[in-house]
């Protein structure tokens, strides 16, 4: 009888085994999906990338984002778009002068860095990374690419969401 009372005095222990199991599973999942990348890509929150089976890897480049509402170069808003289209007054002869001007400055900076040997790798640094919303039309995209071409960038990386 005495022994029975002694058992009841002992506080019930917390069952941590199931919690530990759960944590172990989460930990394994996170370790598998962990990717250490030296290049931090910031996806613009105002757009949805198109889905693609392309498997080329992301590399650093001049970041250009085209959302249905705006055009941004290196996260700085350059101009507004009207439901995914550039207003007629913004472009002439198939190029957007303001974008050409901004990208020309960026191009000069990149080339100056390359000349000074500040860039790693032997790849052509004059590359633009374009993140564009999947609902945009080709004309909008081409106007930006053509403007970049006039500014000195003739290679583009179209950002996509891997399937």
């Amino acid at each position: 009888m005495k022994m029975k009372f002694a058992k009841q005095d002992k506080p019930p222990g917390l069952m941590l085994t199931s919690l530990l199991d759960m944590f172990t599973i989460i930990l394994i999942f996170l370790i598998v999906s962990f990717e250490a990348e030296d290049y931090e890509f910031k996806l613009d929150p105002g757009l949805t990338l198109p889905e693609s089976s392309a498997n080329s890897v992301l590399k650093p480049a001049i970041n250009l984002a085209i959302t249905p509402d705006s055009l941004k170069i290196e996260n700085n808003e350059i101009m507004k778009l009207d439901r995914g289209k550039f207003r007629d007054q913004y472009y002439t002869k198939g190029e957007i002068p303001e974008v050409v001007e901004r990208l020309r400055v960026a191009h000069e900076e990149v080339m100056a860095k390359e000349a000074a040997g500040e860039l790693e790798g032997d790849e052509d640094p004059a590359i633009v990374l374009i993140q564009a919303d999947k609902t945009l039309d080709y004309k909008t995209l081409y106007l930006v690419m053509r403007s970049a071409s006039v500014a000195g960038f003739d290679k583009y990386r179209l950002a996509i969401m891997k399937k």
Partner: protein
Amino acid sequence: MAFNRLKRVQEEAQELNVIPVMNLFMVLIPFLLLGATFFHIGVIPTSTPTLSPSDSDVPKTPTTVAVNLEVTPDAIKISSSSVSLDEDQLNALAAEWPKKNNEYQVLELQKALVAIKDKYPDSNTLTVLPYEELNYQDLVKILDVTRVRQIGVDEKGEPKMQDLFPVTIFSRFVPPELEGENAAIDDQAAEMEIGDEEVTE
């Protein structure tokens, strides 16, 4: 009685203290959550036509053809150009597929590109001329079938891919009725030659 107490003490001593392990997990999980990638971003390398001197040192091999892909609201068409093939040979490579159930027949396009690639294996350049209102997602779908194709799976179960026309060059489709309006663009385009971009995967 004393034996029972001793037994109970021994049982208690055998319980593993998991609190430090839990503490370790609590530190590791937020750290790994920060670095976890729940979606994967990739890129499609492309270019636009660039001005280059006409006496370019790009070797013009007889086995190379450049394929032009025209995307219209109703169909996709391919044509080819090459310095060493005659007109009849080039015409034989041309094809057109109208939309079926409001979808572009991208698989038919891929079959035709595979046939061209098999015949002229050194060819790798595709010039794309979409119409202005073509949706970006639709354009990417078309590019997916023109750049690579799956030829099976490797021993790890990963898809094995073969390059088709990985060098994609965008140009602009100018309808004949707008040619006058776009004369300024055409003047520049007439002087343009396709650049010799190397696309690295």
